[in-house]
């Protein structure tokens, strides 16, 4: 039977080698998350990812059982990515694949016109126009498929604020989509 994240954390604290399983488990998810919220190139994403895993290991004792481990490590990934972008003096350039864009449009229950030639570009432009705080919650909710509590734990904001931001982001998206 596969070990839970919490068990792996305890194992890693006893023996460093167990940490490799955590790295393997979260490598793919965090890699795509970092890419989505930063727009960094693949090599740079890998550098940030390494830093995330090293930071997570160094701070492993600060992980509290009341949190989900995934929320905790996503939080580290988010903060490390943002601080890396600050170091480079660039603003986060949220990057979404075509599938990501379709997922978001579907989640907003908007009648999409996927057959249109410029559909993806249109949706991408709308999302880029939105505030970073909205893009953060939209990414976590509709692409990373996190629930409100997890988003609250990742971004360290109250759950009520998460809900408000998602609703406002949806409304803003609809307005921009329907009245470009």
């Amino acid at each position, binding site marked *: 039977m596969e070990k839970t994240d919490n068990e792996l954390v305890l194992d890693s604290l006893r023996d460093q080698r167990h*940490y*490799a399983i955590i790295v*393997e488990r979260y490598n793919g998810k965090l890699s795509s998350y970092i890419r989505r919220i930063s727009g960094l190139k693949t090599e740079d994403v890998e550098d940030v990812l390494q830093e995330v895993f*090293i930071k997570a*290991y160094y701070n492993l004792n600060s992980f509290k059982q009341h949190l989900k481990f995934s929320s905790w490590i996503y939080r580290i990934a988010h903060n490390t990515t943002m601080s890396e972008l600050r170091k480079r003096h660039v603003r986060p350039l949220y990057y979404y694949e075509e599938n990501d864009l379709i997922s978001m449009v579907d989640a907003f229950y908007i009648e999409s016109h996927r057959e249109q030639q410029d559909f993806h570009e249109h949706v991408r432009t709308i999302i880029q126009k939105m505030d970073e705080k909205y893009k953060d919650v939209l990414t976590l909710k509709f692409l990373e498929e996190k629930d409100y509590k997890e988003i609250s734990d990742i971004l360290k904001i*109250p759950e*009520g604020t998460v809900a408000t931001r998602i609703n406002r982001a949806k409304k803003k998206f609809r307005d921009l989509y329907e009245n470009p």
Partner: protein
Amino acid sequence: MNNLSDKILETLEKKHIAPKSKYVFLLTDILFWVVGVVSLVIGSLAVAVTMFILHGQQWLWLRRVAGPAKIILYVFPYFWFFLFILFILIAYISLRYTARGYKLTLCIAGLVYIVTTLCGGALLYYIGIAPKVEEQLIIHTPWYEHMLLPRQHIMHNPENGLLLGVFETDEDYSYIRDRDNIVWTLDMSEFDMDDIDADEDIHEGMVVHALGKKIKDYVFEVKEIMIPPTPLWRPKEGVQEEMKEKLHQMRSIK
């Protein structure tokens, strides 16, 4: 194992990276809680002293020299008010740094803090800590004494019948030495000693506040006299006897 996990383990080993002790995190968390609680206590103290200062004013007396807006402008304890705001902010920031502090919205956390501080302040005021705190600050900190100047200014207006200063006596007369070191001879003929509360034992060296009328230069007819809840400034050591004698002689001639 994939490439990345190999690299990570290699880096951890090469750089001798080990997890930071759990006690460091525990102590940090405790530290933020302590700062939060201490901030609440100081905030409550600020509320208590503010209540004490506002409640301790002789509003009816002060109305002789200024309107309500001006009185509030002069007696409002800005220092304590800003201290209250500052420590509410510090308490909120410390809460945000605790493990679960981010779960509360600014509105809820702010409301909880303000209500707690107001209740704490009322309690401290009720048990009588506020005058002790203010008195100690007046005695030991010159900067605090300096901040009381506006309050002293509005309480001392001989032209309009208010006199504030240190009470002094000799065999014949009583005097009030004001903040500018001017000695006022008190005409007590209109003053009824029974008006003084039994627990208000006025003696030399005390800061007192008198209500009455300026009869002529440096002579003040007293109708009522009271001891301010706190001394308002540090009484100077020693009475300048010679100066008092000279003034007394001058006034007797007049």
